[in-house]
């Protein structure tokens, strides 16, 4: 109700700090994007078809997943949902579920891709999990996205939806004291529908296989180290999504071919609409405007971090299997060297690695931001 007052305060702020929005006369980059032109119209048309194709594809593949346990009738309006595809993640799942449950995820919608390590029973036993199963190819279903897109379309509409992998732990500003409902409330108040989070590769000190990890334990206790400041940020012109690369994997495995280093930017949290579709993992989403999780005029938007627990000791054994299945990269053969190195249980630690202490540390290092949230 007092927002009008705030509007003048804002103008006061603008007088001091300069304008918050782009005056159309100045920024050339902005103009190229926003000016109505034949090219922009053509691009919009192309992307629209791309999105519809993705949705159609998800519809076509809807039969590939069969319901194992369906508890979706427990989803209340306004519930916060998490969508996950897993394969043999029984080691990570206990902590993954506990962490995100504590953050305020009300219901997990999980697709199990042919696990044989007890993941399926573990998931089916959880009261807030709805489980689907499939034995179809992960890569052929766009790394599980076709399955999830269908579930999101059916169950996600109107909800805040978190789309994660089992080796990702979401961290955001004030996450120890404010739950996801507070975060999404703030995003809504700012008129935002999407929330960006960068993946931060965590690793132990010493050879990867030499660590001990018990299921349920916080993986960060075992591998608290990360690279704090070697990230490359670019903007992809077609979908205006970011392309962030760097971190321990780029430094250790892709120093000679940095272009091939894994993409780290993600848009994991979205207030879903049934017309939305992720394009490439959760790195990019359509419609294109949803990728605008960053400020182009110098300010900082609010953002989070996905602590990436890929390098648990089991990675060494898993790499052999992953390499053989060739399901994880678009050109899997190009990554043979990567798997070869992983199988040798490398030590990713360097004297410049930093030890994780909490979200405030990541914010101070500029890996994530509070934006204007106090």
């Amino acid at each position, binding site marked *: 109700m007092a*927002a009008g007052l705030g509007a003048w305060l804002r103008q006061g702020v603008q007088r001091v700090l300069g304008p918050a929005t782009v005056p159309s006369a100045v920024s050339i980059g902005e103009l190229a994007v926003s000016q109505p032109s034949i090219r922009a119209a053509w691009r919009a048309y192309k992307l629209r078809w791309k999105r519809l194709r993705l949705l159609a594809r998800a519809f076509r593949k809807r039969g590939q997943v069969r319901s194992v346990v369906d508890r979706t009738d427990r989803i209340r309006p306004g519930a916060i949902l998490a969508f996950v595809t897993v394969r043999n993640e029984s080691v990570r799942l206990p902590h993954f579920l506990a962490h995100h449950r504590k953050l305020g995820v009300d219901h997990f919608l999980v697709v199990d891709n042919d696990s044989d390590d007890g993941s399926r029973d573990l998931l089916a036993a959880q009261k807030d999990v709805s489980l689907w199963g499939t034995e179809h190819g992960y890569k052929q279903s766009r790394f599980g996205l076709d399955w999830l897109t269908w579930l999101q379309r059916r169950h996600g509409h109107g909800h805040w939806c978190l789309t994660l992998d089992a080796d990702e732990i979401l961290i955001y500003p004030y996450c120890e004291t404010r739950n996801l409902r507070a975060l999404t409330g703030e995003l809504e108040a700012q008129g935002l529908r999407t929330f*960006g989070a960068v993946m931060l590769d965590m690793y132990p000190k010493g050879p990867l296989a030499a660590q001990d990890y018990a299921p349920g334990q916080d993986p960060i206790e075992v591998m608290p180290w990360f690279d704090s*400041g070697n990230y490359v940020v670019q903007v992809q012109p077609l979908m205006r999504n970011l392309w962030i690369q760097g971190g321990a994997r780029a430094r250790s495995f892709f120093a000679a071919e*940095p272009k091939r280093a894994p993409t780290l930017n993600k848009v994991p949290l979205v207030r879903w609409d049934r017309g939305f579709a992720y394009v490439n993992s959760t790195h990019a989403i359509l419609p294109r405007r949803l990728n605008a999780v960053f400020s182009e005029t110098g300010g900082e938007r609010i953002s989070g971090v996905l602590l990436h627990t890929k390098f648990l000791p089991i990675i060494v054994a898993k790499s052999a299997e992953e390499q053989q299945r060739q399901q994880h990269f678009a050109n899997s053969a190009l990554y043979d060297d990567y798997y070869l190195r992983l199988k040798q249980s490398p030590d990713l630690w360097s004297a410049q690695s930093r030890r994780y202490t909490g979200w405030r540390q990541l914010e101070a290092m500029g890996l994530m931001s509070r934006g204007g949230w106090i």
Partner: protein
Amino acid sequence: MSVGFVMLCHTALERAAEVARHWVERDCPVVIHVDKRVAKPVYDTLVTSLSDLGNVRFSGRYACEWGTWGIVAATQAASTILLREFPEVRHVFLASGSCLPLRPVEDLKAYLQSRPRVDFIESVTTEDVGWTVGGLNLERFTLRFPFSWRRQRRLFDSYVRVQRRLGIRRRVPAGLVPHLGSQWWCLTRQTLSAILESPDREAVDRYFRRVWIPDESYFQTMVRQFSANVESRSLTLSKFDFQGKPHIFYDDHLQLLRRSDCFVARKIWPQADKLYQNFLLGDPSGQASAEPNPGKIDRLFAKAVERRVKGRPGLYMQSRMPNENWENGRTAAPYSVFEGFSELFGNFEVWLGKIAGTRAHGHLYAPNRVEFAGGETVFNGALSDSAAMRDYAPKSFLTNLIWNTRGERQCFQFGPGDKQDISWFMAGDPNAQISVISGAWIIPLFQSNQNFSDIRRDAARLQKIEADHLSVLRSPWTKARVRIWPLAEFVENPMEPLQSIIDEISPRSLRRLTEAPQLADLKGFGQFLQNLRNQGMQPTLMGDFPAGEDPTPTASRRGRPYLVK
């Protein structure tokens, strides 16, 4: 019973009920207005939950859409009931359902008791603040706003435009001086009743019905008609973000709210159990009766706005990716680039590290690897020394380096033998201090043991690269602090330029240089240049070295360069 509360509620009614109960149980009557858009069963639950209390009333319900008259109508209705039903009330405090008392009611009562005639309401004239014309300030009072800003934005905007174009103006009723201010006030019975019982009220209400956001102007304007003692501030702590939306307070704001010494704060997050627990049920014998001081915590909020609007200079990350020229600082801190110095002086990096008290890098943009200081392979922030990674994103490499070493000035060498992609970026960066001894790159060639035809070819290539680089540094777009000396000029008197560079790097030390770096041996250099000329290559960037005559650095002055008597 000196103070009564009017509460405007629309969501989280159970929290509003808790707060209302808190006030009523401490002998303060409360009149509650619930937005008409709240469903009947929800409203009924609220009424039932408070039915055991005597001093609660519910006013007639209006639809309170943001920016419309409904909020004022609701306030008027509820205030009228409060004044009528509770004649002992002296001050009326307007609060919302998401307000939370931060200090014991006794404090507030005592505070108001000692200021019995004061009206606490923020009330500022539109002219005095001089806000820009585009933002609807005075125009709130002179245009008509029949459309909803929330639901009919396009109609709203175009109708404003049409009125502006046609010059249609409403007349502000005679005698009224438009004032604006926070919606949350605390008025005396005298003032409030004068406003509500004014003989002109009907005409005034009719006028304000079409004013934009009347809840921030109706009472703020009217109070100037009737009050003799306006204190233009709100007793309610309320902060706004960069978009003008109110900040929400969470559990982790407990200490912050305590420190503010304000009586009431809004908005409180409905799930902030700890805040409600602490402030409603906490120990009523609080601290001494300090003056409310929201200024104590203002800095924090100002910083948040600055972070949201301007961001941290030199930071490029997932939620801050400024377009070119919108960076608010391309890099995070000042740094120095030296070109030609390590070629002219044998031990320049060691010397510089010692004098400037920092780690001096070699050629960071060397083609084979990044020459970090001390030969490190991984530098601050886990930056790799891989040339491929650096060349993949040369700008990111530099901005990361400067960001990762905030607080420690970076110095590095650069030259025509290096990758040149970063030239434009550095030249346009006000943080860069670029010092060039032009033509010094030829000294390693002079000292080398190559065939002369190879030397000649290399010299021509490097001269071309450096000439291009210098034209970048001399372009009108350059914002860096650039100094260029031709080699010939520099060797004549090396200490003076060195002193001025070092003074700029560490201005506070103001030490006189006592130790000069070791100058390369240039015996036969003039002849070498002449030989190049004779072979058809024209060395131009070094300045004027006469053939046969060797440059004579003022060797005698080395060691005590500035001894002036």
